[in-house]
């Protein structure tokens, strides 16, 4: 089963990467981008076919490792 965990910075948390990318886009002449915030995606292949179980598993993975819940939020999608 395929799934995706998307991890993004909580709003209000400084995103130095996003800031640097904004600047770079501007100097590349890509105009019209007001702001950029960078996050991560994890494309996960899961054994078995139980959707609910997969979701629990991914939440556990996110809480324990994939996300730093002090500064990040995450979202889990099981794509089937």
């Amino acid at each position, binding site marked *: 089963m395929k799934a995706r965990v998307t991890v993004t910075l909580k709003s209000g948390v400084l995103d*130095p990467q996003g800031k*640097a990318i904004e600047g770079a886009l501007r100097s590349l002449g890509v105009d019209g981008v007001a702001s950029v915030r960078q996050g991560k995606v994890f494309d996960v292949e899961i054994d078995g076919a139980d959707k609910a179980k997969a979701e629990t598993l991914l939440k556990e993975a996110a809480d324990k490792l994939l996300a730093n819940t002090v500064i990040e939020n995450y979202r889990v999608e099981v794509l089937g």
Partner: protein
Amino acid sequence: MKAAVLVFPGINRERDMARTLQLVSGRAPAMVWHAEHDLPAGTDLVVVPGGFSYGDYLRCGAIAARAPVMDAVRSFAAKGGLVLGVCNGFQILCESGLLPGVLMRNAQLKFICRDVYLKVERSDTPFTRGYNAGQVIRVPVAHGEGNYIADGETVAKLEGEGRVLFRYTGPDGIPDPNWNHNGAMNGIAGILNEHGNVLGMMPHPENHVEEVMGCTDGRGLFAGLVDHLAKAA
């Protein structure tokens, strides 16, 4: 030797590099700001030094590779000019398309700073003429993303054309996974472009050039370049 050292925001080994170039060639390099559109007249070597250009944000070297000065470097290289990229400089050269492949996170996912051993595969290039083929040198590495990866075809081509100039090995020159600290494919530490005038390497030869500091194994690279350029002139 009229070297030009590029300076991007966040680059931090430009002083180390400038001092080494001065020490070995007797001439201070020009420091060239990333926003420049031209290289100083008469430049015969461009050095892209190490550091964390743009904080290594997005991908190492990605933002720097798109700076105005890189257009000048591309045309300099196209005309056969010598370009050396070290560490972040290597990453920048890969991102700018001057060298193939990418440098991914170290296999251990950690930044590693230590002395490593490199086997110099060839001595018949401007960058390695100061060494003997097969010679093993000790130089420091200091990077978190030096794990060289390219598709199979590219790697086969690099190997087949003798474009892998430096390889991580044990002190005896024998490849050994335990001595490949970042997990690079085939232990690749430094590669040459197709025309043989652009070198990118992860380790820092510029930090091992002074007798009084204990090791001069990095000196051959710079001494060889000086020699090459003197003969070419």
